[in-house]
């Protein structure tokens, strides 16, 4: 049996596969199909200090081989999440990564402060792609100095490890990764969706502006992972365009310690359990003993 366990911030995950934030509801929705305790960890939908209603429809649009989403960070808020859903993960003994965001530095910080350490919480995943309302809506994650300042402040208010989820829509993502690392980030999640629009040629309008996801993100994510892992000595969780186990293996080889699967789950809700099974088979068939044997092994 292949050893799929990975260490992440002092916790041992039974395998390195998890869902991408916002692609598995509050966790309970998958119950009728398969047991999510088979994942390495569950990543929450982006949570905020107060509930957010999100955007009016349409929130999604299909693009060739992918989709654009504009959910607008719809969520029930951290308090309701802990009250309503944490017992579900406790019953499963499933490690949880808390994805969170704010529309101001204060919101991020207050949100991080209010999340108390819990035996199942692996880390906080700060979504740095959020628009900073006070700074005219520019995303926090675009400039190294903003990332540095925000991550430093978040780190100062929590004992829980903090990872920064970065947008690829920047001049040089490894500069951003470096800033997060210098500020004390314990890890990185690479990458978030890429902003895009849909043009409806019949109605001559733009029905949706949002984050692009799907298999075409894979090469962009792999490049980001490779470049950042060469400069920054903290664990990287890879995400973006993973559709099957081969994609996942590429992410590990490029330097990811764990991977997240998002949009593929919508196409096939069993994508995650299939990937877990198949990477085990791959490791066995290639004569490796552990998933750790393939992390970052790609030659340059």
């Amino acid at each position, binding site marked *: 049996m292949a050893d799929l366990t990975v260490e992440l911030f002092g916790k041992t995950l039974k395998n390195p596969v998890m869902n991408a934030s916002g*692609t598995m509801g509050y966790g309970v929705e998958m119950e009728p199909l398969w047991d999510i305790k088979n994942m390495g960890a569950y990543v929450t939908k982006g949570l905020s200090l107060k509930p957010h209603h999100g955007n009016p429809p349409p929130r999604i649009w299909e693009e060739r081989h992918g989709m654009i*989403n504009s959910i607008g960070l719809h969520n029930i808020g951290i308090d309701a999440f802990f009250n309503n859903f944490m017992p579900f993960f406790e019953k499963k003994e499933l490690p949880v990564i808390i994805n969170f965001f704010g529309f101001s530095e204060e919101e991020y910080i207050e949100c991080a402060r209010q999340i108390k350490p819990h035996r199942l919480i692996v880390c906080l995943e700060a979504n740095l792609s959020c628009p900073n309302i006070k700074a005219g809506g520019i995303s926090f994650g675009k400039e190294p100095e903003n990332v540095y300042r925000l991550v430093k402040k978040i780190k100062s208010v929590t004992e829980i490890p903090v990872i920064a989820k970065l947008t690829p829509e920047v001049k040089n993502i490894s500069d951003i990764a470096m800033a997060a690392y210098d500020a004390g980030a314990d890890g990185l999640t690479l990458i978030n969706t890429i902003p895009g629009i849909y043009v409806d040629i019949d109605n001559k309008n733009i029905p949706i502006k949002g984050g692009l996801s799907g298999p075409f993100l894979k090469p962009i994510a792999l490049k980001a992972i490779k470049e950042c892992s060469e400069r920054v000595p903290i664990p990287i969780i890879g995400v973006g365009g993973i559709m099957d186990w081969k994609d996942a293996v590429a992410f590990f080889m490029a330097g990811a310690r764990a991977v997240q699967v998002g949009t593929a789950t919508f196409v096939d809700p069993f994508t995650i359990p299939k990937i877990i099974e198949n990477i085990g088979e791959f490791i066995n068939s290639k004569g490796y003993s552990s998933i750790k044997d393939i992390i970052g092994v790609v030659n340059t």
Partner: protein
Amino acid sequence: MRDFEGEVIKNEHITKDFFIIEFRLQKPIYAIEPGQFVMVKIPDERVFLRRPFSIYDCNKNSLSIMYRIKGEGTHYLSKTPKGIKTQILGPLGKGFNINFEDHLKPVIIAGGIGIAGVHLLIKKIKKTPDIFYGCSDEKEVKLIEDLKAKHVYIATMDGSFGFKGDVISLFERHLKHYQSSICIYACGPEAMFKSLKEKIKPEIKCEVLLEERMACGMGLCFGCVKKTLDEKEPYKRVCKEGPVFDIWQISL
């Protein structure tokens, strides 16, 4: 809910751009509530996400869908020949509540392809319903051919069959006879729901089946929401909290 493998055993053109596709399921499907839907993997590489369709009809080992060619997904679905196998996730969502009080008369209102959403309800409802069906012309009347034995009031926009005008105007003519002793089930375009809501008294029970673009169909992505009057959490998932909603609780 489960992800069924289904083999196309029929993909029949009905009229204009309307089709019925039937799948033989590899495993039996149980406990379907009328109004529930499935997410179908369109067997063409050019279509990425699955597409949601109301369950038109269903037996233990087969399931059919009535659809209209609207975009690329339904276009390629219409090209799917017999023998092709694909994945069908379902049954999904919350269907119609058919446990209404004994003294109420069920009234079913469908607009155009909306008939696909209430067809199974018409088949399964215990008390004989009055059916109002509206469409653009007499060609579309073919969509309710199998309901001939039932009591159906028909409206066409061009007047080529039955009442000339929209289905709600036709329904309105009968409304005074019913008074408040009916419960309504409706499926059709949003404008139809809006007009219906204006015509009926708030004490009348009325459930509507909504349509929205979906990615997952099972509550994972929050992509298919509809605005409701719930101030605390206005946007409800059509795939999970719906697709059937109480007309008095949604914002139209």
